[in-house]
């Protein structure tokens, strides 16, 4: 009986295509190995598409890609007939793994520290590898996410992770990929989080002064970090100097204030975007704008200063009543036309990051080319986060983060058929598929 069942399973096309898939349950990381996807359309993203091509994966990396690639003996092979291979998508603006249930379950929320200045808060310390959001997201073809703390003025440091692993360390691609600063919003802070009511009643000069005080708080800490770095360097060279105390809050800031690592400024409105660019220039930082709803209004400046933007508001309502109805759908196309570097993110805490393709598709419905829309969720985020040598396209030597689909990557109706993260074949199950299986046949 068991043999008969096994024969039936082997004969079924689904099973036949799943050769090499371990029967691992959620939480168990499948092993690497040698795999070949042959006879598929390969969307390399960095170069031209390859019809009927082959991708070879070995020990976590893409070993070869092309139209005439030999399949190594012993490779586990996937027939890609009718399928397309894309690089895994990257969502560069989430808090995935830092929060499970934002409302009513405070114990699951680890996004925001107490106080205004927390550069030492590191997302990689708190990211929960077993968050249900992670599998729900990856089975839709998103292999990587930037997960960032959110609180105060200096929120902390974001991590770039693979959406697979049982420990944060295993997941980390770059454990500290960027410093996250909430650029102070005019009209908020320095007298309460008043919103529009405050704007109508408070004195404008008071509001501006409060804003400047907040910027000063950030400035002071960054200057302190510069001094701290100089003192530590001086002592390292000359031990006869008085030994400066170590400071765990200032120390992580040193590479950022020296412009060695990028600083992400959350800023959506024109005034804040301009403010952040000016501030970064003054402090000689390497800025990235996170949010960027008004980036289309600041496109020339962003281009001139070569500041990239992680757009998180494609599906937000326009900021102003008299903005064009499609102002935010069109934002990527306008930035592309102006030569601004950008990528597209959901900006979602995590649960809905699975919809990343929809965000990119919407941008393509409103002016962005389909090819650029795919780049906006693959190669562009990799470039902005300085990991394009490892992620974002299908090229030999890169990390084997690949998605095999039965159609256009961004179309809602397309399905993910195979998924590789870090060269590991991932089982396409999640909390959602499990609940579906449990209840779909309830009589």
């Amino acid at each position, binding site marked *: 009986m068991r043999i008969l069942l096994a024969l039936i399973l082997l004969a079924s096309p689904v099973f036949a295509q799943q050769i090499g898939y371990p029967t691992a349950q959620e939480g168990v990381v499948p092993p690497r190995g040698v795999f070949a996807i042959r006879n598929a359309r390969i969307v390399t993203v960095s170069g031209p598409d390859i019809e009927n091509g082959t991708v070879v994966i070995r020990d976590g990396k893409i070993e070869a890609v092309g139209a005439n690639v030999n399949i190594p003996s012993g490779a586990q092979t996937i027939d890609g007939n009718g399928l397309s291979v894309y690089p895994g998508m990257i969502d560069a603006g989430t808090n995935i793994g830092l929060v499970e249930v934002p409302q009513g379950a405070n114990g699951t929320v680890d996004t925001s520290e107490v106080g205004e200045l927390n550069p030492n808060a590191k997302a990689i310390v708190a990211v929960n590898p077993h968050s249900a959001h992670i599998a729900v997201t990856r089975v839709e073809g998103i292999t990587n996410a930037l997960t960032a703390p959110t609180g105060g003025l200096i929120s902390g440091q974001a991590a770039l992770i693979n959406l697979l692993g049982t420990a944060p360390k295993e997941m980390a691609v770059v454990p500290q990929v960027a410093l996250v600063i909430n650029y102070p919003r005019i009209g908020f802070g320095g007298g309460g989080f008043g919103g529009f009511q405050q704007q109508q009643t408070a004195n*404008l000069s008071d509001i501006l002064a409060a804003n400047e005080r907040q910027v000063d708080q950030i400035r002071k800490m960054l200057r302190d970090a510069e001094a701290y770095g100089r003192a530590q360097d001086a002592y390292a060279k000359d031990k006869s100097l008085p030994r400066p105390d170590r400071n765990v809050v200032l120390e992580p800031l040193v590479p950022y204030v020296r412009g060695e690592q990028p600083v992400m400024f959350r800023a959506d409105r024109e005034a804040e975007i301009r403010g952040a660019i000016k501030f970064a220039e003054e402090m000689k930082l390497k800025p990235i704008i996170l949010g960027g709803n008004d980036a289309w209004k600041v496109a020339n400046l962003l281009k001139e200063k070569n500041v990239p933007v992680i757009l998180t508001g494609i599906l937000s309502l326009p900021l102003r009543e008299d903005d064009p109805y499609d102002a935010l759908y069109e934002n990527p196309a306008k930035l592309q036309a102006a030569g601004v570097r950008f990528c597209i993110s959901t900006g979602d805490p995590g649960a809905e990051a699975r919809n990343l393709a929809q965000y990119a598709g919407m941008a393509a419905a409103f002016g962005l080319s389909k090819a650029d829309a795919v780049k906006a969720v693959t190669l562009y985020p990799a470039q902005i986060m300085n990991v394009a040598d490892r992620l974002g396209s299908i090229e030999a030597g890169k990390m084997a983060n690949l998605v095999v689909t039965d159609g256009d990557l961004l179309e*809602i109706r397309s399905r993910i058929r195979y998924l590789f993260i870090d060269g590991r074949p991932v089982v396409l199950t999640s909390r959602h598929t499990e609940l579906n299986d449990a*209840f779909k046949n309830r009589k």
Partner: protein
Amino acid sequence: MKRFIAKLLFLAIIATLPLNAARAQRQTSQETLIRNATVLTVTRGTLENTDVLLRNGKIAGVGKNLNASADARIIDGTGKFVMPGIIDCHSHSMLDTINEGTLAVTSMVRTEDVLNPNDVDLYRELAGGVTTLNLLHGSANPIGGLNTVVKIKYGRPAREFLFPGAMPGIKFALGENVKRSSTPNLPGVARRYPNTRMGVEEVIRDAFTRARDYKRTWDEYRAAVKNDKNVMPPRRDLQLEPLVEILEGKRYVHAHCYIASEILMLISLADEFGFKIKTFQHALEGYKVAKEIAAHGAGASIFADSWAYKIEAYDAIPYNAAIMTRAGVIVSMNSDSDERARRLNIEAAKAMHWGDLTEEQALKLITLNPAIQLGIQERVGSIEVGKDADIAIWNGHPFSVYSRVDTTFVDGVVYFDRAQDLARRPELAKERTALELAEPNKPRPHGQSPQTPRRRPSGHEDDDMEKP
């Protein structure tokens, strides 16, 4: 004073900007022939190379080589898709206020009294092919206020929005919002009853027990007054009247709920009192009790997304639409958000991605099914001769992420047209710049900041007790 007047003038102009825009583009219900399009009829399949004729606000013809009168507007539909206007069965657009949250039973309040026809989100929804909204009271109370079904006639007075013949309805709500789970305990302030799902059941039971007595009192009066004209009528009770209408089958219940147990509770209570739930709104765990929902004859109006944002949403799955549809439940996909309402086509397509609904089943989620849930299926929800000319023309298949709306008609009148919208932009930008440069709008170094028009916040409005 001069400055004050200028400021007022500025506010007045800003307030009417979108209105002016709509007025400029609006045309009378001109006869319109859309030629050679792909028509998603919903009830009669997909028709290629087909014409659709709109006349006197109705669909007057669907077929090949239709003729129109000489002054008809002709639209070349080659490569375009025509589908029925999308119906959003859960919206709070154009409501100046959403929750009367002070009492557990507020069946005496009406959303119809707080319609704001100038809400710009209405225009944005038209641009997503939406033509009909079910405007629901919020979810702060087990028995909430009365709903309003509208056609989006943006730019017209509020009274013209009302959907003629739509079934009257009411909002019920269960679970965390009703328990006021997100409301902090303030010292010296008593918590509103109920505080548990047990109390929610009791509140509804109590209300219907009172309603049943009230109905009996009126029934007795009506019998008695036939014989004796001098019998005094009972005192009217505006809270209980709508509940009597529910018992008499004259008012639809739209019940906000999330988890399986509370759905079963309400079904059991409704069965006991002899009334029907028309829709379970959200019903995120509806898939766990699909057969019970189907057996009661209720529909479900749900999301594809919005899982895990609170505890009672943690078991929400995107396969919900498919599982319930297969169990025989009439399912619709709603927005409950001014943002999401602009892309319900994609939300419907998600039921093909997650759960393998057919294209026709998925289309019904945003057309015929919500029409049935609102009692307007004879008027809208499919493209058939005689139905209202509430349709949208798309530049590609509406289930493609790459598609967008070209033109939206309500009662045969154009309420959104992308070409006209684009053509108007340079002029609007010029006007805006002029206003920004106007003396009263310049920020002053030591004075008050210029006033900004008040904007109603958007989002998951149901769940935000603090919002106005």
